[in-house]
């Protein structure tokens, strides 16, 4: 990917663009213009084979050219043109407003959701959006129209972070309310009970949804690089904890590492794609993860 295009995927660059549509367009176009003979392009109606006509078949599917040549009534068969319905679940709990550096987690997640939605609609998929914290806060139903992106972007623009994360309940709700099997893209910091999260995701898998989890984390959350005496205040619960971060850094990194390993391992066993994203990282890894998943689905 050319360096000039790569900047369109950089969250720092994207944060300077006030317009989410522009963000999505820049990110996706930047991604694709950097790719060479793309393995992801094009889904069209393709011929498969012919079979003999049976009574009850629709007449409109008879291949009259074959009949003219062979005097046999044959039905032309095609690969079914399949559109995937993608449900983007975006975590808007208070913890997503954390910013260790210049980019908040929620902003990064919004760029990601917007860019993925744009990409999905461009690929011909139906895209829907759910914003959730303790429960589903707002919802944009899935549709495949190109103009549907405006509804999604509007919802993203209006979002505000509030409430605590209750991911398990939301996942169960999604599993119960989605009518059509599709791809569920979860964008969250997964700050909830691990068991609940796994159970919610297992529910989605149970009803044949494909699931990608984009785990958005800040660099400070991963490494705890603060110095001096610091009073940490929990964004969701308001709890306070005063310590010298340098004295607990090693233990913290160990525990966070264990947590991430556990999540990755458990989700991998369940056939759920997991992608850990740091807010200072470009968005292309997320696109590649999505498109690979998309290809496997087709």
């Amino acid at each position: 990917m050319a360096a000039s295009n790569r900047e369109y995927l950089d969250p720092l660059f994207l944060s300077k663009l006030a317009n989410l549509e522009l963000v999505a367009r820049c990110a996706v176009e930047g991604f694709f213009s950097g790719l060479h003979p793309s393995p992801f392009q094009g889904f069209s109606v393709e011929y498969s084979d012919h079979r003999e006509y049976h009574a009850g078949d629709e007449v409109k599917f008879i291949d009259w050219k074959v009949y003219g040549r062979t005097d046999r009534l044959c039905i032309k068969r095609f690969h079914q043109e399949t559109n995937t319905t993608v449900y983007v679940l975006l975590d808007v709990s208070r913890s997503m407003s954390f910013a260790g550096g210049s980019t908040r987690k929620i902003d990064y997640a919004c760029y990601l959701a917007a860019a993925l939605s744009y990409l999905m609609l461009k690929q011909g998929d139906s895209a829907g959006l759910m914003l959730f914290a303790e429960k589903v806060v707002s919802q944009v139903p899935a549709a495949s129209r190109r103009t549907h992106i405006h509804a999604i972007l509007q919802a993203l623009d209006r979002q505000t972070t509030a409430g605590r994360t209750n991911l398990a309940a939301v996942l169960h709700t999604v599993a119960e309310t989605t009518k059509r099997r599709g791809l569920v893209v979860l964008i969250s910091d997964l700050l909830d009970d691990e068991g609940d999260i796994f159970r919610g995701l297992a529910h989605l898998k149970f009803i044949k949804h494909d699931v990608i989890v984009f785990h958005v984390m800040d660099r400070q959350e991963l490494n705890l690089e603060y110095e001096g005496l610091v009073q940490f205040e929990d964004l969701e619960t308001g709890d306070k904890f005063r310590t010298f971060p340098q004295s607990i850094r090693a233990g913290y990194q160990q525990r966070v590492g264990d947590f991430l390993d556990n999540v990755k391992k458990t989700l991998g066993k369940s056939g759920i794609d997991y992608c850990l994203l740091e807010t200072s990282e470009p968005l292309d890894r997320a696109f590649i993860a999505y498109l690979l998943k998309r290809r496997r689905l087709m």
Partner: protein
Amino acid sequence: MSFLGWTFLFGAAAVIGPIVAHMLAKPRFRRVPFTMLQFLRTGRHESHSRRNLRDLLVLLLRCAIIVLIAVLFARPVLKVEAAPQPHKRLHYLALDDSASMAYRDGRSSLFERMIETATDHIRRAPDAVFGVCGLASGRSAQGLSRGQALAEIQRLAVVPKCVRPADFSRLLKQAASPGDTVSAVVLSDFTPGALAEFERTREPAAVDSLSHEIIAPASPVSNAAVVEARAVDVVEGKLEIDVVVANCGQTSQHRRLVAKCEDLRPVPADVTVSSGERRVLRVRMDLGPRARGATRPCLPVELSLEPPDGLAADDTYRLAVCIPQTASTKVLVVYRRDEAFLFETAIEALAGQGAAGGLRLRKAREDRLRAEDLTWADVVVFSSLPADVSCPTTLLQSCLARGGRLIFFATEPGNPQMMERLMRENLIPAVPQKWTQGVVCPEPQPGGGTEFGEQTAKSLANYRFDKIALKGHWLCRASPQAQCVWRLSGGAGFVYAQTQNSGSSVLVNTSIDDSLGLLAKSGAWVAFCRFLVGEGDRIHQYGFRVEERPVLNVPEAMRGAGRAFVDVENCDGGKARAAVNGMRMVLPAPQSTGWMRTLGESSLYAGINLPEGETDLRRPSAEAVADAMKRAFVADPRSKRAIAQAGPPTQSKPLWRAFAWAVLLLLLIEPAITNRLKR
């Protein structure tokens, strides 16, 4: 453990500072919103308690450093039991080897008799450890056998100093251990001076037994001395010296006083003084060509009484006299109006102040100034800056070349053309440029003007010179060579000076007529004129006593050289260095009588004479001597026994070196430990 300077232990109270700081200090933290508190919480209690412990350890370390430093300053010593030593019998002799012991009566001197007495004493004394101390020289030896003590007293000699009983007392205190038996013998002539020294003893020395013996001449004392001399004036080419001759003996003296000085003709004067009488004689020495400005201004004058008497050392008094190069200073006052009377009054007052030859005054109006006036004058005073362009600058140049002085009062602005000319020819140190109104006073002390008299400056301070309010001042442009030697309170220059050849020129920023009038009306006016005219007409004289540090005035030629040290020759011919401090030169303290002189082209002399008390040989009464001995010594064996029974003998072992190492070590490791703990 005890402390030599225990008051420093109060310094340990400084630990309160870090302790209070520790107690008051609240940890300063910053608030950070965060998300993953569940991952932080593990080990919270451990971190908090360890942090407190670490802070406490750092505090303790710092407090320990402060306490150790306080203890170090208090100089701790450890009292350890000394190894028991066998009790000794000590026998100490204090022998008077002061100058008065050189008195010779018939065949032998008092000192020789004292040595004989001391020898007998040592021979007759029971077996003991001997100690010998010269009361004037301070020479001492202890732990001697009988033979060694006899040899030691033969090494003593008379020194031209007074007795110092404190040296003997100190020796006794150091030598004696508790339990020792100490007997002391004092042999002296016990002159009034020596008795006074014994009576002045602050801490008497404890002895078990004390005896003293007065070494006195057999016949009545015959001694007269020159005890004081002072040069008064130079009149008609003759140096007048007042000499004080005292009869310090018991017989009437008919003596001849002879004043000698290098190649000058000796001047004799007969004198008769009865016992106890002091007479002042005025001796007039014809200076010859030196009266008219000598190349060597310092004269070593010896005033001797002939024929010699019992004590020859006090028959001669040495006085160095520095005569000004000019017998009288000729002052020409150049005036424009009628302000000359201001200077006339001051110069006349100065002339009457006992200066050698005094000052001679001549006045001339500026427009009627004659060449012969300028040729005549040593000091030319311009009461205001010259307005006449025809002022003969060549004659002013020649006045400076002769070593003269030009003094300008800036009462009125001079002719600009003339000012530029004077400045160009280096005749004036500064030129007034802009008049500034406003009350200003001279600063209390002159600045870097080494050329001007410190004494006069001090006397000016007595007249509250710095309180004289002038009505304004000129802002002056000084020439590059000029020096501002005195400033006004506003920072502007008050007196500027510069040297040209061997002469000098001075500008006084008196600003306007009123200011000059205010200055002249003040009591400081005469002293200020003395300051301006210089010290050229003052006689300096240098007569000192043994062990008194001679201080000489540095000659002008030497001042210019900017030397910090001057090589000098001592009375005994040895070489030493004298420190030059501005206008003063401090010579090393002499140890014998004679002449000290600076080495160089024109030597300065300092006469070194006997200490004042050593010439008085009046015989003391036995009661007075006994009283003096009681003051200097405590002959009470019980007090010593009490000390002996108080406890085992102890020895003090200094500990401050160990404490210093401990402090140094703690200071070195403190940052490392603090960093380690706070990590």
